[in-house]
């Protein structure tokens, strides 16, 4: 055996991985796979498509529309796609087993999860900016045709619109963390987002006390003032209560699962 170099030892004084770098890496990981590219591309493409279809209908039928109408139309496809992106950002680490590498490079899993949340907020911002540009473009054309361009969205409402999209992606992240499986999390998310509200409505129609309870547990309805305004103390309380039930508590359970589950 040749001479062995002196042992240098492990250095505990090195800087840890900065949070900004973790966010940068997670952002890159969201966009560097086919699924991620397609989802991000689809969000942009569908926003433009919605704008074109709306313009076509509006111009053909001589209807007057506003900037807000365009934005509302675009929030529908975004409400479907953004949560899926949120789900995949967590579950792909398990289904593709990259968690093994991710949590080896950063053993403090909470920091990785926080970086994924930050990325979700950034992606929601990207989606809102794309939607706002497409909506503005459509609104200018529609306005030119009808001689009346209506810009009826203030900055606060635009922020509310962003908050709605951000909550959507965070819900996806939460379901992903709870189930740690892409298909299961996507199916359960859509069941929660589209089936449960209907069941609740039916139940509310037949059960009196449930009708009174519903505004406190219906997270989607509780979010509507974010964009439509009309805030009251009660509405804020309803958003807080329903958000605690569907987002905060499940997120805490999901985060515990991510932090503690054994990575194999």
């Amino acid at each position, binding site marked *: 055996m040749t001479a062995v170099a002196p042992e240098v030892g*492990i250095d505990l*004084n090195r800087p840890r*991985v900065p949070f900004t770098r973790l966010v940068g890496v997670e952002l890159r990981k969201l966009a560097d796979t086919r699924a991620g590219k397609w989802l991000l591309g689809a969000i942009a493409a569908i926003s433009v498509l919605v704008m074109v279809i709306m313009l076509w209908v509006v111009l053909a039928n001589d209807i007057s529309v506003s900037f807000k109408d365009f934005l509302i139309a675009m929030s529908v496809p975004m409400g479907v796609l953004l949560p899926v992106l949120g789900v995949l950002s967590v579950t792909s680490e398990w289904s593709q087993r990259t968690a093994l590498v991710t949590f080896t490079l*950063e053993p403090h899993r909470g920091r990785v999860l926080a970086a994924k949340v930050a990325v979700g907020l950034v992606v929601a911002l990207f989606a809102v900016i794309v939607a706002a540009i497409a909506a503005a473009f459509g609104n200018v054309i529609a306005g030119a045709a009808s001689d009346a361009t209506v810009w009826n969205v203030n900055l606060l409402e635009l922020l509310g619109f962003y908050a709605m999209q951000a909550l959507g992606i965070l819900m996806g992240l939460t379901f992903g963390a709870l189930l740690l499986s892409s298909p299961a999390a996507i199916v359960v998310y859509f069941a929660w987002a589209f089936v449960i509200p209907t069941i609740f409505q039916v139940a509310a129609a037949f059960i009196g006390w449930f009708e009174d309870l519903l505004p406190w547990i219906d997270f989607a309805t509780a979010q509507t003032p974010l964009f439509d305004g009309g805030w009251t103390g009660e509405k804020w309380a309803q958003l807080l209560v329903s958000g605690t039930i569907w987002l905060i508590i499940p997120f805490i359970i999901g985060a515990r699962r991510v932090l503690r589950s054994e990575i194999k």
Partner: protein
Amino acid sequence: MIQVQNLSKRYGDHLAVDDITFTCRPGTVTGFLGPNGAGKSTTLRMLTSLTIPTSGSATIGGHRYSDIPNPGAQIGVLLDASAQHNGRTGREVLTIAAQTMGLDRKRVDEMLDLVGLSPKEAKRRVGNYSLGMRQRLGIASSLLADPQVLILDEPANGLDPAGIHWMRQLLRHYADRGGTVLLSSHLLHEIEVIADEIIVIGNGQIVAQGSKDELLAGAGTFVRALEPDELARALSVAGIHVTPATADGFSTDADPADVGKAAAAAGVALVELRPGDRAGLEDLFLQLTAGNQRDALAPAPAPGFGPAVQQGGQA
């Protein structure tokens, strides 16, 4: 550098790792050998803070892995070469790791070059890689930061014989510069080629550990003479028990030195005298693990073990 002390891991009533203790020193390549399901991967996951030990400790340089800041930059880890996103290219996988650790991007090209992945191969998606290519990519990833410690789980799995020798050279060179290497394998011939020190684990317990030479010494001696009958008599007089192996040769548990002395004392001319061959080594591995691993329950005779293990995947 790597220290495992009374380490245990229990899943329900199954004891996956049972009170194991071992040390890996700088400058050596330590092979962690055992059949599938013996507890190798669980041990390596506890060493990298991915699995919480039930009891005992696993430290690197005296510290728990999770207490080391930016651990990837000081410790190279490859736990499963298949654990990569199939949709990413080989280069992208390395770029992400380099970015996380805060390394210069040119390390990516250097490592691709080192492990022999061509620029064209690096642009392909990992989903299209062979297992051997994934192993090379995983090794490239573990070496990105030029760490002092390497922890590799089944790194030779999927490599062809030339690839195994390439890895031997790579790890030997790395250890000669003062690096500490711990690698696992369920195949004796891989460990035999690559490691200096061997730890054999079966059913969660360490059943043997020592330098390769020490462990192989137990494999005995093969000896051949011009006059085999005289040789047999001479060895028998010296108290060495032999069994006929070929027409004119014998194998024995005794040391080559003792056999040579006995033959010289009796004036018997030897044609061949050497340590026990590979079969003896396989026997050793078998003997060490047979009582401690699941295949022992099967009615199949021991010689069937070798090929059966070769086909097995990692548990």
